[in-house]
């Protein structure tokens, strides 16, 4: 059977070309869309405002000094200060609504290490006295929830810093 030049097959060429174009356009649109997907946080939390009012990082991220995970604040912790309205902010009101409903704030954790890595905030902050900004960037200036983590951690990030400061870079400390 003659394939090329057969009228039935030639008729399909415009459709195939159209399909190709559509595929790339949709793909590009999807890619751009993915690039700009900011995680939806339960509250439009203003870091800068809290810091300027004298709230320290460790007041809300209570685990930093004592445990491996820095922890994201529970609604009870927020209510500790925001029991009564301190501002006219609608976001602040929402905290009380969530608390009154007995729900929890489902924060989206942005800065993450690989799931098989054991990272201890306590060891880095309480023992090595590393400033938070070293890994988390100028979070105290953020007026709205950040779109993405300040840093994406790879093994090179960790090892680079450990070598620079001449501290132990034993495989076993993180991989266990």
């Amino acid at each position, binding site marked *: 059977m003659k394939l090329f030049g057969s009228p039935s097959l030639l008729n399909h060429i415009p459709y195939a070309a159209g399909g190709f174009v559509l595929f790339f356009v949709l793909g590009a649109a999807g890619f751009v869309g993915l690039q700009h997907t900011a995680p939806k946080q339960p509250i439009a939390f203003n870091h800068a405002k809290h810091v300027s009012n004298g709230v320290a990082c460790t007041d809300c991220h209570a685990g930093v000094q004592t445990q491996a995970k820095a922890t994201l604040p529970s609604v009870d912790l927020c209510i500790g200060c925001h029991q009564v309205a301190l501002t006219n902010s609608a976001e602040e009101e929402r905290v009380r609504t969530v608390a009154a409903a007995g729900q929890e704030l489902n924060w989206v954790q942005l800065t993450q290490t*690989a799931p098989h890595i*054991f990272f201890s905030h*306590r060891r880095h902050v309480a*023992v090595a006295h590393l400033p938070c900004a070293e890994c988390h960037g100028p979070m105290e200036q953020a007026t709205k929830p950040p779109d993405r983590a300040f840093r994406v951690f790879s093994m090179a990030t960790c090892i680079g810093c450990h070598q620079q400061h001449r501290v132990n870079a*034993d495989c*076993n*400390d993180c*991989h*266990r």
Partner: protein
Amino acid sequence: MPRWGMVIDLAKCTACQACTVACQTENNVPCVPPKEAARGRIISWISVLPQIEGEYPRLSMRPTPLPCVHCDNPPCIRVCPVQATAINPEGVVRQIYARCIGCRYCTNACPYTRRMFNWYKPEFPGEFTEALNPDVSVRPKGVVEKCTLCHHRLQKARDEARAAKRELAEGDYVPACVEICPAGAMYFGDLEDHNSTVAALARSRRAFKPLEELGTHPKVIYLAQGEWSGGDGQGPRT
């Protein structure tokens, strides 16, 4: 720099298996169904092996707890094609699960058979899933695992010593098997420190290293009498 080592007194071991159970719970070692265990696919970082000695009718059994012996010259490291296993400056031989491709060269190279392959997705019966140790990962299917000398305990002990502004003292850090041993048959410490209990015991005439002739330089040292001991094989000494 310390060189961590273990001394096991075989004369004291009662084969109670407490060390194997302690290890299993401390390190989230998964349970393997009996049928698969019979195929040799059981995972047990420390096993109490029955060593039969003598000839019938003069038989005796010497229970021998065998963890990874943490060789100074480990055959497992040389065969690993992806550098998923390494020995750290303190002499602990470790497995990096994220790198392991599951080729099992190391399980074959280990003369002590102390490396186990995860043939199955790790399973923990019932409430065991709630009792996993958060300091240790649960290994995925398809990687090799082994004794770590409870490295997470060393890190914890170091942190505590640092917080108290003192040096790490003997007894601050012991693996779970040594801690649990009800017969007090296991000792753990720094072999490099000549004043430590393990270093003193390692120098004793009863001390011998398992399969020493292979040149692996193990850091798990046994104390025994008779044929196996480091003595002249003339039996107990007074």
